[in-house]
Structures are given as C-alpha cells and as structure tokens.
C-alpha cells in the first residue's frame, strides 16, 4: 500500500526513529510501511495519521482497494 508518510516526515523534519517512537513502533516498521512492504494495522494507521493531524485516508492510499 502506498502512503504519504515519507513526504509528511520530510515536511515535519522528522526522522523515522522519531516518528516510530512517537507512535509506539520500531524504525523498521516505519521503513517497511513507507516502502510498501508492510500494511499498517488500523490502530497504527490511526496513530500515524493522528500524529500528523490528518485522517487515515489522507495518509494512506486506498485507491488499489477501490479498484478491486
């Protein structure tokens, strides 16, 4: 799944480590979500979106699911 996490991180000048600590996960998980290897669970997606003050749909791209 594609996400805007990397762009948002750059915008907020955040490292993966800092974001991971803020949302209670590991840096490796953030990396995997950013490159699309791992799909975040609903609670983690909510935490990430909430951290940036956005909705889940604004951070995560669900267009692939909509196409199905």
């Amino acid at each position: 799944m594609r996400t805007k996490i990397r762009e948002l991180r750059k915008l907020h000048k955040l490292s993966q480590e800092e974001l991971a600590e803020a949302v209670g996960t590991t840096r490796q998980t953030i990396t995997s979500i950013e490159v699309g290897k791992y799909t975040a669970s609903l609670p983690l997606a909510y935490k990430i979106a909430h951290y940036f003050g956005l909705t889940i749909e604004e951070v995560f791209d669900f267009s692939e699911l909509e196409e199905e």
Partner: protein
Amino acid sequence: MEKELKLYKKSLRLQTVFYSVSLVLLIIMMALSVFEVIRPVFPDERWQSMWNGFLFGLSAVYVVVSILGIVKNRKAQQNEAELKKMYIQTHDEREQAISRRCGQTALIFELVGLLFAIVIGGFFSPVVSFVCIGCLLYLCLVVVSLRIYFGKRM
C-alpha cells in the same frame, strides 16, 4: 501508553519471578547431578555419562539465559526509557506479524516432515515411527485446542 507500560512492568515482574524460581530449581538439579544423587536412567555407564553431560550443558545454557533475562528485566523496571524501548520492541506489530507467519509456516513444515518420518521410519524402525505418530497427534491436539480457544476469544 502509560496504562500499557504499567501492565508490561507487571508482566516483567512475573517473568522475573518465573526466571528466578526455575533458576533455583535448575541449580538444585545440577548440584544433585554433580554429586550423583540423581542420574539419568541408562544401563550403559558411557551413555549415562554422556547424557548427564548433555543435560548439564543444556541446564547451564538455561541458567545463563535466565540470568541475562533477570538482569534485562530489572534494568527495564528501574529505567522508564528502557522500559518503553523494550515494550515497543516486544509489542511491535510487524515483529508480531513476522512471528505469526513464521509459526504458521513452521507448523506446515513440521506436519509434513512428521508425516514423511512416519512413512519412511516405518520401513526401518517401528519405534521411530510410533514416536513420530505420537508427536504428530500431540501437535494436532495442540493446534485444535488453540484454534478452539482463539476461535472463542476472537
């Protein structure tokens, strides 16, 4: 997060108690084994000594692992930052997903491996075949029980 950390701290305390109790029991067993109060049942002296050495080595590994676990847990209980770091590492959802997938794949390999061992072992040693059947039945029983348990919980 604070509530979760509190619960995690409690579970670490329990884990430390478990480590300590098992450590004491194992050290007692090792001492009894060294002074030959208890010894593995083998008719052959050479096999007995070899098996005794193997069990002693295994126990020594467990002792080291337990001591490391106790030290790590104590450190985390006294330092909030360390506790949070450890909590995140153990509760990371990607790590849990990896473990789940590893468990599922390993189970398939175990079941298929045991089935092969039962069939092939049957041609060479019926004892090996029966032991493998026992293991397979035990594995199936555990899987079915866990499926019922988690099926009711989720």
